[in-house]
């Protein structure tokens, strides 16, 4: 089946412009995550959506970052007034729930190919 897809794959923008990054999760996955991967920094968790519930925004690095998820499926990450330090690969993941025991479960996250954002 189709995996997580992200668009665009590459985005070059000028400092101060707004950008929108899109994520299409795997069909049937209710949870969706955004991460940022910077050179030498590893993957940094940004935000998490569970279905249509209000997201936990505590991982967003500044108020210039926002994200929404429409209809419990597609998500858009928006960065306003981009800065050079926003340059990174933005990764989206969706998760499937697996049974750990009759009484507990765990999630496995599957990642998209990412959007490489370059702010000049």
């Amino acid at each position, binding site marked *: 089946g189709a995996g*997580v897809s992200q668009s665009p794959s590459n985005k070059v923008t000028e400092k101060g412009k707004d950008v929108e990054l899109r994520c299409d999760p795997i069909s049937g996955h209710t*949870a969706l*995550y955004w*991460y940022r991967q910077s050179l*030498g*920094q*590893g*993957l*940094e*968790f*940004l935000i*998490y959506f569970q279905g249509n519930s209000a997201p*936990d925004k*505590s*991982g967003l690095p500044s108020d210039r970052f926002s994200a929404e998820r429409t209809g419990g499926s597609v998500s858009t990450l928006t960065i306003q007034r981009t800065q050079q330090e926003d340059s990174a690969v933005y*990764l989206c*993941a969706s*998760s499937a*729930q*697996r049974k*750990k025991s009759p009484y*507990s*479960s*765990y*999630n*496995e*996250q*599957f*990642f*998209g*190919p*990412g959007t*490489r954002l370059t702010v000049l």
Partner: protein
Amino acid sequence: TQLLEQSPQFLSIQEGENLTVYCNSSSVFSSLQWYRQEPGEGPVLLVTVVTGGEVKKLKRLTFQFGDARKDSSLHITAAQPGDTGLYLCAGASHQGGGADGLTFGKGTHLIIQP
């Protein structure tokens, strides 16, 4: 804040050698996932370990979860050039992600020389 220390950060070895990558934390994780990432692509899930002491094998790759669920290791036997890539460990604190997302180690850049 949960931290995952991954070591070594870089490893370059000859084809046919064995290697081990370590992932350590002072925090307990409910599950731990290993990913492999190629340049220009997203991380690809290799395995998830969920039970303390668990060992999983994937061909020449052996994954182990510590008894206390604070550490994990990845052992590769007879490494091949195709094993080259960035290996990432990631821990989940609540039911695999939850509101905190996964905590990632900084990764191990592995190069297998033919």
